[in-house]
């Protein structure tokens, strides 16, 4: 037996020795394009962004003049009222939309898991439609529907005797209106993940709870929710990062207005970069934003690993 194994091992070693070099290193050839792409598309811009964050950047014909100015771009952030306002608004946005989306997504997922399999298929297909629509198209569509004078929403309200709403035209209702649209669209993402999580839960705890005479609410609260904890953390991580980066919807629907009532951090960064062409300051803001998101993600991922 031992001899047979030795002979096989010897054959393997012989085979490896005969293998051409390119074949033994083939894996690196396969990875190389992705690595090169990553370096060009992600690593190099990230390094440039950090460099610009500590510099004043000026456009010259054929070149970017990058003059180091230390931490000036970073210290400016704390006296910039637009950024302070955008940061608070973004925080509120993340808190509200992520919480609401998790609640809505979970409820839909739970109800869906109770449905007949055919009904599940039909409803799932219908529910993911908002999810597959591009945010810019969604924003443009809702902008038309929320038009104060010609929009279908105010028309429908008028049919039931409710007066026209200003929706996006009032600084008190503009952000909540966009939040509603985001909740409508992104809850379906939460639903998909939660639904998959619910379907993959083990049945034993449910049987034990039923034997112990637990009510449906007790089962949901004390069995389903704790078992879904890892899914919750994943959803929370993905949705928080995504919600914090919101800019496209505002850009299409309100340009950050009225005034600056819907301006978020990423929209401000975009304006500083591409309207003021202040790439140094915009890079400093991006770097700070990036650091905050990395800290958040690290905390979440630790929770996932613990869970």
């Amino acid at each position, binding site marked *: 037996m031992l001899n047979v194994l030795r002979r096989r091992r010897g054959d393997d070693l012989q085979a490896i020795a005969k293998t051409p070099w390119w*074949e033994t290193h*083939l894996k690196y050839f396969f990875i190389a394009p992705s690595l090169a792409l990553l370096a060009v598309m992600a690593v190099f811009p990230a390094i440039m962004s950090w460099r610009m964050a500590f510099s*004043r950047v000026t*456009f*010259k*014909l*054929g*070149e*970017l003049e990058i003059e180091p100015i230390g931490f000036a771009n970073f210290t400016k952030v704390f006296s910039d009222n637009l950024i302070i306002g955008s940061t608070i608004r973004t925080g509120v946005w993340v808190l509200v939309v992520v919480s609401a989306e998790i609640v809505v997504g979970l409820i839909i997922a739970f109800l869906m898991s109770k449905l007949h399999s055919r009904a599940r298929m039909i409803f799932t297909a219908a529910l993911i439609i908002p999810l597959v629509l591009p945010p810019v198209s969604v924003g443009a569509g809702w902008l038309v529907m929320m*038009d*104060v*004078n*010609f929009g279908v929403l105010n028309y429908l309200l008028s049919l039931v005797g409710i007066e*026209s709403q*200003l*929706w*996006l*035209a*009032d*600084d008190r209702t*503009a952000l909540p209106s966009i939040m509603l649209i985001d909740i409508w669209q992104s809850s379906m993402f939460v639903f998909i993940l939660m639904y998959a999580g619910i379907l993959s839960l083990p049945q034993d705890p449910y049987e034990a709870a039923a034997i112990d005479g637990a009510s449906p609410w007790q089962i949901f609260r004390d069995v389903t929710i704790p078992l879904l904890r890892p899914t919750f953390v994943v959803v929370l991580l993905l949705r928080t990062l995504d919600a914090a980066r919101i800019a496209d919807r505002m850009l299409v*629907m*309100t*340009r*950050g*207005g*009225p*005034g*600056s*009532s819907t301006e978020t951090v990423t929209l401000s960064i975009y*304006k500083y970069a*591409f*309207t*003021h*062409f*202040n790439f140094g300051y915009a890079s400093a803001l991006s770097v700070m934003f990036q650091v905050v998101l990395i800290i958040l993600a690290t905390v979440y991922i630790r929770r996932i690993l613990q869970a």
Partner: protein
Amino acid sequence: MLPRSMTRRQMLRAGGGVALGVGGAAILAACGETQVVTQEKIVTQQVEKIVQVEKEVPVEKVVQKIVTREVAVEKVVTQEVERIVTVVIEQPIGKPRVRLRGTGPLGTAETGIFDKLLSETQIELDHVEQPYAATYQSLLINLSQGGSAYDIASMDDPWMPQFTEFLADITPLYQGFGWVWPDPDMIPAIVDLGDWPPGKYGPRAVPNIGNIQSFAYRSDVMEELGVEPPKTWDDVAEYSTKITGDMAPDLYGYTIRGQPGNPAMTSFLPIMRGFGRDVIDGDLNPQVNTEEGLAALDMVVTLKNLAPPGVENIGHHELGKLMYTGLAAMSGDVWPDQLLKMYTPDLSSVVGKIEVLPEPAQPGADHANMTGVWLFGVPQGSENHEAAAEAIHWLTQAENQKENMYANNWPPVRFSLMDDPGLLADFPFLAGIKNAASVAVPRPRTEHYSIVEEIVGRHVSAVIAEQESVGDAARLADEEVRVALEEKGAYS
């Protein structure tokens, strides 16, 4: 056949072979023979086109026409009484087909303008269509970095102070073809927009679209009120008060754009200038927090309160819609494309009821309609300067500008077309645009205008939304503009 098992190595080899084969085939296909336009084809296209356009023109003029299009004609022979002609051409034998790429408003492919350009000049123009802001951003990055992504840049006039140093000089390019620049048929004030700072770099752009902002009003409503068209902003406020008071919610007196940045600023600027001051002075000092600026902002608040609900979040298209659906009686922020809609029976409920005027101005102040002229330039980084100049020359010819007026409602920049009886008959508002053009002034000429526009436009939007008081908005706008321009080194 029985299925054959494969080792992982064999599968990798086979996969690699297939990938190489597919890749090789694609490369070979890409290296295929390029399209060659024969002399005969060029001749046919030339003749067909000219016969079509110049049906009633004698043969001598056809010959002349061909010569001016830089096609050397050796012989023209009429075969019949009508325009069936045979042209023998020495040049452009083998004139290579050139492919250019341009962005910004160049023309509309549906009208066949790019096909016509190709058939007459052998220049194939790829039009990269982008929204306004994206056009500006991609042009600034490409032009400033000396990139060759674009051969023709179509630019809004407020961008010119930022772009001129990155563009090629038009004069030698035109002289190379034997053309005169500046073209004496083009409105000089508009041509000058392509030269910034005046005389420093020389002319860098050729105007193509003579967009002028104008004040539009409902003539039937003015008649009903028994008043003359408004001349001052006080008149506008007074008439708007009457209109909104008597006729709302069916009709409101005035409409304004409230979205922050460019929209709010574009609605605000004619009002501010109508009070006798610009948002920044010649030394780039901000001017909103001045007596005139504060009065202009007060006027904005007054007019906003007389406007249809929801103007706090409207842009260009929505403002046009409020006018052509007959919900608003006046606006000082109306552009030619919106006028066309107001004159389109399928869309508009106010056809024939809209008149165009220069912007109102308070006593002692000048009327100041804003230019929104689009100009063509050749980026320095382009590798096709001559071909780009040839295409620009071709695109800005009178017949193409006329076609653009019909297809896109792009007002021409040529005297000969502004007074063209046919155009005036088809576009009655053209006379008003011409009057507005006579008092038009560009937006403040500085490379930092986009910053000023973003900051002041945001605070004007906040005033319209009642988020900030007039005093706070003016103070904050001036402070922020000064800080931003100081950072840009504008005062050093």
